[in-house]
């Protein structure tokens, strides 16, 4: 099979590391070769963060380059736009409609482009927009945005729902398992 490239992008502190951990866990169990690239350190402090997940028969590079991403999961609207050049032609964006102002916007040095998702759609890009923050709150925690979006992503793969739920159980702390499973199902569009 051809290697599948997933990018998880967002704002430092939004929990993209857990999302990639969960994905990696599931993909290894399914027998794929997997590489996951994370960035720790300074950018985790509220900066723009990027995680790459690649899987297939044999994966060499841990990175995804411009025009290579099959899926971009964006935890924030502006970040989807920032990383649009990474998307493969015909690729899919899954985006949390939440707006988190970056510092240049807060200080007034720049403006937040409100209509940026419409602009992306107008270019013919497939955009699956979801209010993941509201669904996460419905599931029980604002911190579950990451799992809501994983739930959304699961719609695009053939893996059985039980495999995803099991992967959640095996990667999150036991006391948060139930809440995260609910977040996953809400993201997937199930109750």
């Amino acid at each position: 099979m051809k290697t599948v490239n997933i990018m998880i992008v967002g704002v430092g502190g939004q929990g993209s590391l857990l999302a990639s951990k969960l994905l990696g866990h599931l993909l290894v169990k399914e027998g794929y070769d997997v590489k996951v690239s994370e960035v720790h350190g300074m950018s985790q402090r509220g900066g723009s963060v990027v995680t790459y997940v690649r899987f297939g028969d044999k994966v060499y590079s841990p990175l995804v380059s411009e025009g290579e991403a099959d899926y971009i999961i964006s935890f924030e609207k502006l970040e989807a736009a920032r990383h649009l050049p990474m998307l493969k032609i015909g690729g899919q964006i899954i985006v949390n409609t939440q707006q988190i102002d970056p510092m240049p916007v807060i200080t007034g040095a720049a403006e937040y482009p409100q209509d940026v998702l419409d602009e992306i759609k107008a270019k013919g890009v497939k955009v699956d927009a979801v209010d993941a923050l509201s669904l996460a709150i419905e599931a029980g925690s604002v911190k579950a945005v990451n799992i809501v979006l994983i739930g959304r992503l699961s719609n695009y793969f053939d893996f059985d729902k039980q495999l995803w739920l099991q992967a959640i159980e095996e990667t999150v702390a036991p006391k948060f398992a139930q809440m995260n499973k609910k977040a996953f199902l809400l993201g997937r569009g199930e109750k």
Partner: protein
Amino acid sequence: MKKLLIGNAALARGLYEAGVKVVSSYPGTPSTEITEFAAKYDEIYCEWAPNEKVATEVAFGASLGGARSACAMKHVGLNVAADPLFTLSYTGVRGGMVICVADDPAMHSSQNEQDSRHYAISAKVPMLEPADSSEAYSFAKAAFDISEKFDTPVMIRTCTRIAHCQSIVDIGERAERDLIPYEKQPAKYIMMPGYAKKKHPIVEERTKALTEFAENCEFNKVFFAENSDMGIVTSGTCYQYVKEVFGDSISVFKIGMINPMPIQALKDFANKVKRLIVVEELDPVIETHLRNIGLKPEGKSLFSNIGEFSQADIKKVLLDKSEENINTDTAIPNRPPVMCPGCPHRGIYYVLAKMKLTVLGDIGCYTLGATPPLNALDSTLCMGASVSGIHGFNKARGEDSQKNTVCVIGDSTFMHSGMTGLVNIAYNASNSVVIILDNSITGMTGHQQNPTTGYNIKGDPAAKVNLEELCHSLGINRVRVVDPYDLASCESAVKEELAADEPSVIISRRPCMLLKYVKAKPALKVDADKCRSCKSCMRLGCPAISIKDGKAVIDATQCAGCAVCKQLCKFDAIKEGV
């Protein structure tokens, strides 16, 4: 058993299985997790040392004591550890010893992108360079055999894309090892001129033997493609990019032992390909070796020596191809890292910026005080340089600068290499004001304990350095503590100490907001009727505060309730939450 591990966890597993007994390190991105994962194994004694020099010397001591030992650091940490490294090359080891160093091409979280391979060559120490987690694991194990066989410390060099990338590792079991009996060997371990002169030729002979070993060693892998048009010599993460682009269609010489490199094996490879190309990030280390042995490779004439590569760079340079993509027409505002809501550094920085002081800075989360809107820093060089630097600055500029210059340094950085600078201030008498930003943790690298926190790497209670008493002992009479959430008292403290006729230390003390035991207070609220849109609160650069429809708004999901913004509002529009 197959597991998906980041390179650092795989390396730690390799150390564990090799029977390592002692690991000492100072945290530094991207190397930190090596030691954190090693600390999860009860069979290994692990610690955070105050700095990389201490860590390396601890590992040396453990090796001298007959145990297998290791230390880990980031590339700039190796500068600090360079002193023991160069002479360790002469003494050699008793128990096997491994020095792990993680480079950061593209400076994801660093102040420079130096290439650690130069150190191995310069110190004449073998260096291995794994290309994924599986190799990080197996090379770590094998490194100890080389260390003991050739009587030398062995370096393992990774980079961000190895250290922080997960790939599959097939792990094994730990082989427990008995301590090698201690034996007094002055000629081997006392490096004074008489003994050291006898050791240097042995080091040179060792390099020859290692070069011989490199000709056929398990770490270097050669693949010949049917088509002999192009042959690439590469190593580490670059190997993965090359394979991603070319698969098995070209010949590849993958170097796993970067020092010393083989001679004949590389000549043989070069003879079988029409075009010889080196793909390596940063400096032309492999390329220089190939030239030294009489080959004529293309390398830095094609590829940059700045930043990190990806498969796209290889494709662009060697195939002149790139993937189609789409861009937005709208300009996308940058999203630089920021100090967190409730960060204790923000208050003191606000005061320093307001007073328009010259501020010599240091390495840590608090380097972010340099960014807008605070713009509070004037310099950041290396660990500890703020304290030594302010002394030089004041000596050069005299009384004028002493009244409007301070330096800031974190608690962990002060332990690392700020103390010696403070001794210099006291001893050589400059009227400098040193502000220790004590947030009770090593923050930027992800919350590691340090000698001021009262806990060790396992989270168990440990001796706690009393910063006030320490500064007194180092010769500073004026030492005071302020709460960075209290702007008025911070300002008066800074004013008083700048006016004083002797050096002083201000400890700005409040734990990092992200620490589990620190509880956020209820979010503050803006009374929109009272807000006059003066934007005073915006000068803090707090991510929780923004302006919506002309009025300040506080994001309740982000606000930590520190109430620093409340102190700036002249119209009493910001209310404490309930």
